[in-house]
């Protein structure tokens, strides 16, 4: 086997599997199979598995060892991620989040393909491809809707009256980010401003990169309940089309001993699937947004 043949075969594997992915994702996006604009689980699971199988079909001619097959599958996944950055204009943090899913399913597909093609059974090959394609189409046509709530609470050594003024609006958070996603560039909450202290007033949650969430106060019960709907999200590629923050809420419960329990609730709708993977990230990010804000409120309230 010559070096040129080896390289050409490798390239064919990379090119054809990425072309297939591009076609499938393109077909999905531009035929608007999903009315809601959700990115279904097939995009992140079935497509990488098919990419792995297709690359394996080309690479079986050069009989790759396991280490090489894993390594080249990782390169293949990286190329797919790079193409998503260029063509789909996805954000860097988003791609970082999605990458473990892509890598694992591409590797799974590559080894599945290797074993499939070793058997040299055309019926099996056609069946596997057909089954995966049917799952892709069915999933793409199915309704996807997922709303979740994340709740956090914190005890503050202050009365509800002392805390309330910092809940409705607060000055800039100066504390350094301690959540790793914030540290590597994901915007973190920085400041909140308010038009007025009444129901219906506009509120703005400003993030570290200057992006702003426009909010409207829907429940205003001083020292007890501040609930606001999010009426405008920033056009940030990291969140656009992936997650909608629907509503936020701060509840204050007087513990009767000079302390207050502050509860932070956020409701969001996810547009990326599978839920079992993305909701872990959504919960983690939302929780860290809560904690950053609530710790700031605690610090301001306890200062007096």
């Amino acid at each position: 086997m010559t070096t040129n043949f080896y390289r050409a075969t490798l390239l064919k594997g990379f090119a054809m599997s990425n072309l297939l992915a591009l076609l499938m994702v393109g077909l999905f996006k531009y035929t608007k199979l999903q009315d809601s604009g959700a990115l279904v689980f097939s995009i992140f699971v079935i497509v990488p598995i098919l990419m792995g199988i297709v690359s394996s079909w080309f690479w079986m001619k050069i009989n790759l060892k396991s280490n090489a097959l894993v390594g080249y599958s990782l390169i293949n996944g990286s190329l797919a991620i790079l193409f998503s950055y260029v063509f789909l204009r996805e954000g860097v943090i988003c791609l970082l989040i999605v990458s473990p899913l892509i890598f694992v399913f591409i590797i799974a597909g590559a080894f599945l393909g290797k074993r499939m093609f070793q058997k040299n059974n055309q019926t099996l090959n056609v069946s596997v491809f057909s089954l995966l394609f049917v799952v892709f189409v069915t999933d793409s046509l199915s309704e996807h809707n997922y709303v979740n709530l994340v709740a956090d609470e914190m005890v503050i050594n202050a009365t509800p009256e002392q805390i309330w003024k910092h809940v409705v609006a607060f000055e800039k958070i100066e504390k350094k980010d301690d959540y790793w996603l914030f540290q590597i560039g994901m915007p973190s909450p920085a400041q909140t401003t308010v038009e007025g202290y009444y129901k219906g007033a506009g509120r703005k949650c400003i993030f570290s990169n200057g992006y702003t969430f426009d909010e409207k106060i829907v429940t205003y019960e001083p020292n007890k309940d501040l609930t606001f709907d999010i009426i405008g999200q920033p056009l940030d590629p990291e969140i656009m089309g992936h997650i909608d923050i629907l509503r936020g809420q701060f509840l204050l419960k007087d513990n009767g001993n000079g302390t207050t329990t502050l509860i932070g609730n956020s409701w969001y709708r996810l547009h990326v699937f599978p839920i079992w993977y993305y909701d872990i990230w959504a919960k983690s990010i939302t929780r860290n947004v809560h904690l950053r804000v609530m710790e700031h409120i605690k610090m301001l309230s306890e200062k007096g």
Partner: protein
Amino acid sequence: MKKDKVFSFVVRHLGFLKDVPLLPHVFDSLLKFRVFLRNPVLLDWLDEIEAEVLQWEGTVVGLHQYGGIQFDHKGKEIGHLHSNGLLDVLYTREMKLLLLKEGRIQPHHVFEKSGWISFYILTKEDKNYAKELLKIAYDQVQKKFATRKPYTAQSVSP
């Protein structure tokens, strides 16, 4: 024998998911990914074991239903190899007891009282021992086929 704690945890607590199509293979790919990052030489050893077993007459390799690769001889399983280097082999009870006395293997990580055994490949010597273990199982299966009475019309007649 040093155990893979992550693997043991998943088998013990998430084992009920093993029948979800493709999931065991995805988990095995996750193990491959981890081995590739932390101990890539293990993947070479697994390839070497596979290549050697395939040289034995009548053996084939396929995907094991719960992840990893499975070695069969004439349709009967000899053993299977998970991508974290865990080898599971099936023996007669007598052979299992004999090998347990050598002290290198352990009863199977799930089915302790069956004829199955488990062995973690951690070193180059372990790799060679894994080949020996598979060869013993292969010889056993081969012997069983050799001693099996041929099927004739006479043998089933009353």
